[in-house]
Structures are given as C-alpha cells and as structure tokens.
C-alpha cells in the first residue's frame, strides 16, 4: 500500500516538473525569438541620420520631438531624477524628451541585465564589468566609437587623449559602449581625503598644527588631558577613523611614514609595476605608531566596531566630538581645518593620497540596440560636452538655483552637496551629476568655471590650494583598473575577500596590542602568501595593464 502511494507521489511530482519545464521552454523560445529581431534598423547609414529624423548640426537635434526611454540607478541625494525640471529644458532645446525610470535597487539593475530588458539609453547604473561584457556579447549595446567619430568630435578627441578614461570604459571585448562622467577638478582628483584637525581646540590649548608624528601625538594627548575644559567635551575622541576604510581610514598615516598605499587592497603603482604594501615590512612602523596611540587611549576601540553611520555621525558632530579625522569634506568648517601629512622623521617624504584622472564613473550613457535614434542620442551627449548651459543644467541643475553666470561670463556654483538641506529643498531642480555624462575636464576648469571656494577658508578647494598641493602623491602612483573577463574577476574577488578578511583581523590585533607586531609578522606574511597574495597581485597587474597601456 505505502509503496504504491509513494510511487504515485513520485510520478505525480515528476509530471508536475515536466509540465514546468515545458512551460519554461515555450516562454524562453518567445524570449529568444523576440530579442533577435529588431536590430536591423539601427545602423546609421551614410547620408541621413536616424532615417532622416536627426539634424546633423545645431538645435533642435531632431526634426520632430522624440521620446527616449532611459533608466538610472537611485541616488539618495538626487531622489527625483525621473521628474526633475531639467528634462523640460532638454526637451525644449533639443526636441529629445528623455523618459527616465529610476531603478530603486541593485536587484532591479541585475534583473534588467538578466532578462535582457533594456530601454533606449542606460544612464548611470553602476554597471560592473561582467554585466557590461555579457550584454555586449549578446549584442544588446551599440558600439559608440563610430558614432562618436561622426557626431561627437569633442568626445572623440577627449577619449583619444585620455587613455585612462578610455581604457577604463572598455568592455572585456575591447570595445567602447558608453561615455563617462568626467570631473577633473584638481581639488577633487588630486586629493583623496583631507586630514582635519580641530583648530579651535588647538587655539584654546595654545598649540600649533602638528607637522610631525611626535607633535601629532602630543596634540592628541593634550586634547585628551584637557577633556571637559573649554569647548573640548568630556568624552572627546582625540583621533578617530573608520578602520581599514579607504575613505575615512588610517591610510594617510601609512603615507606619513613613506609607505604609500593607493588602493583599498594596499596596492600602489611604481613605474607601471603594481606592488603590494600589506606585506611590506616598512608598514610595521606606522602600525607601531598606531599601536602606541591606541595604548595611550588616543584612539578609541570603536574605530574597529562602529558602523558607517555611527562613524559619520561622530565625525559630523556639532559641537565637535573628534579631535582629528580623515574625510572628503571638512565637517566643521568654522572650527576644524586641514592639516598636511605628518613627518615621521624616518627620512621618507610624507605624502597624502591622491586620486587618478579616471572616469567617475564610466559608462553613464550606453546606447542599446532598441534605440531608434542613436545619432540623435550621441548628438545630445556631444551637446552636453560643448554647450555650457546645457551641461551645467543637466549636471548640476536649473540655472539660477544651482548655478549662474558671473560678470565675466564664467559659471559658478550657488550651492551643492555640502548643503544637504538645500539639496533636499530643491530636489525638483537638481541635475543628474555623476549619474549621467558631463565633460568637466581641465579646460572646463580653466576657461568656463569659476571655482569660488578657493577663497573660502576650509573648503576642499582652499585646503588643496593652501595645504595639500605639494604633499599629494603623484597621480601615476595611484592604482587604477580596467575590465577583465568573468573568470578573472571571480578569482580576483575570491582572493581579495580572503586576503582582506585575514589582513583586517591581524592588523586590528597588531594595533590593539593583542598580537606583537614583530613577533607575529612572519607568520602573517606567510599566511597572506598562502591565501594567494602573489596570484592576486598578478591579477591586479593584469587589470592595471588593461587600463594603462
């Protein structure tokens, strides 16, 4: 009895599964069938562009108003990228009406790639190399270089001249499918984090801004000793950072000791050769310095346990809670100021980290094969690069609210991300910033833009100009990477996770004193090598070569 029952059950289940498989087959066939059809009409032939719809020069871009569907990934600072007023401006000027859909989550972006369900234009979705390559392989994207040569001379020559940007945007098949967002402001690119110190407290304690590691320690000690006096809170945190975070972390301490680290994986580039710093014995010195600070109570244990939000809360605290921290922007511009990297006295020049002149990010405008007007689209992208008003409207926002022209005809900023409140208030007028394209290269900053913040104390630009200009690492030492094939990416990620996990644990033990640095060093290096450090560096070199050749 029981046997025949369970047999019946098994048979029944099998039937159910077979039905399911067949259902899958038929739906898939439709999918496959549908997708290969429409590619014929997109090829722009010589003569008329887009089948006669697009004007070859001037505004409007198309003879009649057209609609293009686009997607963009959600950004908290610009929540209304689909409804912003700038699209009206663009439609009026160019006749191109961009209908933008905001993808709220990475899952949705993933689904778009997995189901081959693309719009006409893909804006910034943080596309990774696997996604890009597999979509390119499937013929979903339109190769953009030939279109650039025909309709976008500015972009074309920019890409030719900026190898890092060009190589960094390629898919693994070596072709270019999208244009990047470019912002080459020197005070942005030539500096990673500022090193902020609470000047107001120094003044109260009659101290100077520290220039050496010795002085830095003394200043921190003084701040701690004077907790509760003056404006120094009783629970002050002398020195605080987000442990091992490339942004906000302790990497500039390494740089002060001459151990230059320019990537979260502890790599840097020495004349085209990618080298690892995590097992460089010279890093023991800064680690010992950090251990010293920790054991003197100048670094709280929370640097290892606080999460990102808590970290930001503490460093942004007003009145200030932290004596010194690393951050992109100065959180207390009235009270804190930027300090340069400190000299360790070991003969190595202290440098602070910089960034490279790469796309930020790449592929923020990708034309898909569903796009009926590729020439018009490329003309729009070119217009953004050449027409100042269009570029700033699309990138920053509505003229008069976000930016304006000054008496000399240069554009300047009225407010931006450093005022999150104003951003929220004017969210209907914001541009797309780095979710779309822009070409703010060196010539933009030289001729078209007036950066006012150079004159405002404690802004990033001012800090760059007055404190950091001569203390930043040369850009060619910064590690940058290009796209590798799926298997290489997979392996790289695996090595990276294993190495990072181990290194973080060991360094945390070193700094808190749980493990002695000298005694534990050899075992640490041995284990790192066992976890695949050499192969990892090789893969990273390969990725570097892709972009830097």
């Amino acid at each position, binding site marked *: 009895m029981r046997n025949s*029952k*369970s047999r*019946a*059950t098994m048979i*029944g*289940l099998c039937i*159910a599964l077979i039905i399911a498989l067949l259902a*899958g087959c038929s*739906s*898939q066939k*439709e*999918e496959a069938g549908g997708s290969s059809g429409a590619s014929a009409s997109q090829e722009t032939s010589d003569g008329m562009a887009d089948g006669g719809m697009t004007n070859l020069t001037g505004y409007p871009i198309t003879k009649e108003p057209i609609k293009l569907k686009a997607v963009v990934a*959600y*950004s*908290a*600072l610009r*929540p209304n990228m689909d409804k912003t007023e700038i699209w009206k401006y663009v439609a009026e000027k160019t006749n191109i009406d961009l209908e933008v*859909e905001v993808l*709220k*989550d*990475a*899952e*949705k972006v993933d*689904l778009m790639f*997995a*189901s081959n*369900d693309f719009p006409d234009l893909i804006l910034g979705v*943080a596309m990774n190399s696997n996604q890009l390559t597999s979509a390119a392989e499937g013929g979903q994207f339109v190769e953009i270089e030939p279109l650039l040569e025909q309709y976008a001379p500015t972009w074309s020559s920019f890409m030719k001249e900026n190898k890092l940007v060009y190589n960094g945007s390629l898919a693994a098949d070596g072709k270019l499918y999208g244009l990047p967002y470019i*912002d080459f402001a020197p005070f*942005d690119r030539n500096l*990673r984090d500022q090193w902020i110190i609470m000047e107001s407290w120094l003044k109260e304690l009659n101290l100077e801004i520290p220039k050496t590691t010795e002085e830095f320690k003394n200043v921190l000690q003084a701040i701690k000793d004077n907790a509760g006096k003056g404006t120094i809170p009783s*629970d002050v945190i002398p020195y605080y950072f987000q442990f091992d975070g*490339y*942004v*906000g972390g302790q990497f500039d301490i390494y740089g002060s000791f001459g151990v230059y680290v320019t990537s*979260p994986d502890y790599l840097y580039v020495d004349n085209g050769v990618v080298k690892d710093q995590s097992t460089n014995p010279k890093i023991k010195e800064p680690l010992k310095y950090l251990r010293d600070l920790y054991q003197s109570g100048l670094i709280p244990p929370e640097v290892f346990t606080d*999460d*990102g*939000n*808590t970290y*930001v*809360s*503490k*460093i*942004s*605290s*007003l009145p200030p*809670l932290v004596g010194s921290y690393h*951050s*992109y*922007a100065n959180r207390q511009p009235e009270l804190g100021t930027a300090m340069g990297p400190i000299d360790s006295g070991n003969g190595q020049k202290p440098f602070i980290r910089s*960034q490279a002149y790469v796309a*930020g*990010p790449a592929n923020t405008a990708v034309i898909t094969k569903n796009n009926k007007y590729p020439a018009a689209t490329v003309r729009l992208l070119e217009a953004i690069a050449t027409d100042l008003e269009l570029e700033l409207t699309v990138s920053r926002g509505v003229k008069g609210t976000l930016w304006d022209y000054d008496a000399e005809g240069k554009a300047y900023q009225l407010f931006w*991300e*450093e005022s*999150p409140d104003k*951003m*929220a208030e004017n969210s209907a007028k914001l541009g797309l910033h*780095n979710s779309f394209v822009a070409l703010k290269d060196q010539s933009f900053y030289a001729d078209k833009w007036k950066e006012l913040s150079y004159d405002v104390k404690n802004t990033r630009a001012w800090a760059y100009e007055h404190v950091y200009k001569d203390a930043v690492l040369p850009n060619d030492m910064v590690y940058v990477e290009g796209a590798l094939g799926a298997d290489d990416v997979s392996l790289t990620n695996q090595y990276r996770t294993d190495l990072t996990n181990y290194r973080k644990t060991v360094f945390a033990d070193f700094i808190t004193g749980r493990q002695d640095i000298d005694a534990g060093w050899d075992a640490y290096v041995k284990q790192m090598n066992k976890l695949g450090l050499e192969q990892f560096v090789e893969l990273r070199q390969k990725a570097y070569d892709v972009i830097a050749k």
Partner: protein
Amino acid sequence: MRQSIRANRGDRLYDAVNYTILTLLLLAVAYPLYFVIIASFSDPKLVASGKVLFWPRSLDIKGYIEVLNYAPIWTGYRNTLIYTTLFTALSVMTSLLAGYALSRKPFPGKTLVTAFLLFTMFFNGGLIPTYLLMKEIGLYGNPLVIVLLGAVNVTNIIISRTFIKSTIPDELFEAASMDGCSHFSFFFRIALPVSKALIAVLVLFAAVSQWNSWFNAMIYLRDQQLMPLQMVLRDLIVSQSAMSMASDSADMGGDAAAQIYLVEAMRYAVIIVSTLPIMCVYPFVQKYFVKGVMIGSVKG
C-alpha cells in the same frame, strides 16, 4: 476542602514565580524598545555616540517632520492598507481551505498534493524566471502581483492542517455527514467558528508579512503611485539596506557621507511611523485567543 488549600499554596508559588519571570522579561525586552522611542526624538548624533540613555537628548522632532511631510507616505499608507486587506483575505482563505482539506482522513491524491506543496518550500526557480513569467502574463506593473505572489504560504497551510486536525477530529465529521452534512457546510458552520484562534493567527501573520514587505513591489511595480509604505520609506532611508552601506564610496568620487547625514535624522522616526499602525492590530486579534469552549462532544 483539603485539596483546595493544598492547591492554593502550590498555585500561589507558581503564580508568584511566573509573575516575577514575566516582569524581568518585560524589563529586559522593554529597554531597547524604549530606546527606539526616545532615540526618535533625539539628535541622531547624540544617539550614535551613545549619549542617549533614559530620556531624549536635545529634543529633535525633525525626523518626524521630515517623514510626515513626505507626501508619498500617505499614498504608501493607502496602498499598503489595500494590499494588506486583499492579501490577507486571499492568503487566509486558501490556507484554511487547504489546511482543512489536508486535515481530513486520507483520500486519493492527499499525499501527492502535500508533497506537491512542500516541494515548493525548498526549491524554486529563482527571481529571473519568475520575473520573466510576470512580464509574459502581463502582471508586471500590475498591483495584483502584490496580492497574488506569496499568497499561498505552505507553512501556514501546514499550521492550519495541524490545528484543525487536532481540534476537529474525524469522528465529528463522520457523525455530521451521517446527518447529511457536506464538507462545505461542515467547514463553514462548524470548523471555522471553532477555529477563531487559528484564523486570528493566520490573519496576523499574513497582515504583518504584507505590511512589512517591499521586495515584490520594488521588482514588479513601476508606477510610484502604486508603491506600498515600506517601499516609500526605503526611499527615505537609503541606508536601511546593508548593500548600500557596503558600497565603496571611493568609487563615487565625492562626498558620500553627505547622504548618510541626511538620513540619520529619520531612521528611528521611520520605525515608529511605519510600525505603529500594524502593532495596533494585535490587541484586536488578541481577544480571539480566549480559551475556547471546545468540542467536548467527542470523547475517547
């Protein structure tokens, strides 16, 4: 008499111990809850640095104002109410019907159906084929998808089956059917009214799960006007998800920390705003957990 005195002392001890344990539990569980409430009224920076202990610090209702002024929240509430009602009705009904059927004595296909349903608890095709299917049958972008997807919850069916099986023995139905009662009328006239506690539990589970859900809406809906409450709140609090915290802000080339600043103020207020309504449902449901007058009609 003697027995009642003995019972009294032992019982009193039991009651006292019970009461003490419950009180301790209450205190242990309540503090973090209390913390959430006072944190929602405090300056987020003080909360993060551990300064908020027993009362709000630096009274700050900015979080609430931001949240309540955010117009889409009200559409979100409305949508969630509709989705929750429909979903709960569908889910509870299917669970009860299926649970009842499976609780009866064996009939042809009973094991097959049970296995058929259980199989789906472990193995499913994943997001991609489901997404493709939705697009194909036209449910993509259709609010119905929120009500239908996930309405059949096999765990709830099993729970229903167990409950009904142990409270409504077969003999009762045998007796009723001999009087000409069909499964239909037995179900509606006898089984349901007696299973009030079960229905209450199912309603609670279904309603809460739908109230808290956002994933399906995010994947399958496009129109902002159709978004449920949790989706709207997620937009406000981008850093609610671990994923966004994981992104390396170095890639973003800019001041990613500004995003977090904007959001901190609202984090705790959002919890209160989003959960207060549904928490109020429980007391209503609680009264169905009364000790039921049971089917003493079948003994032995």
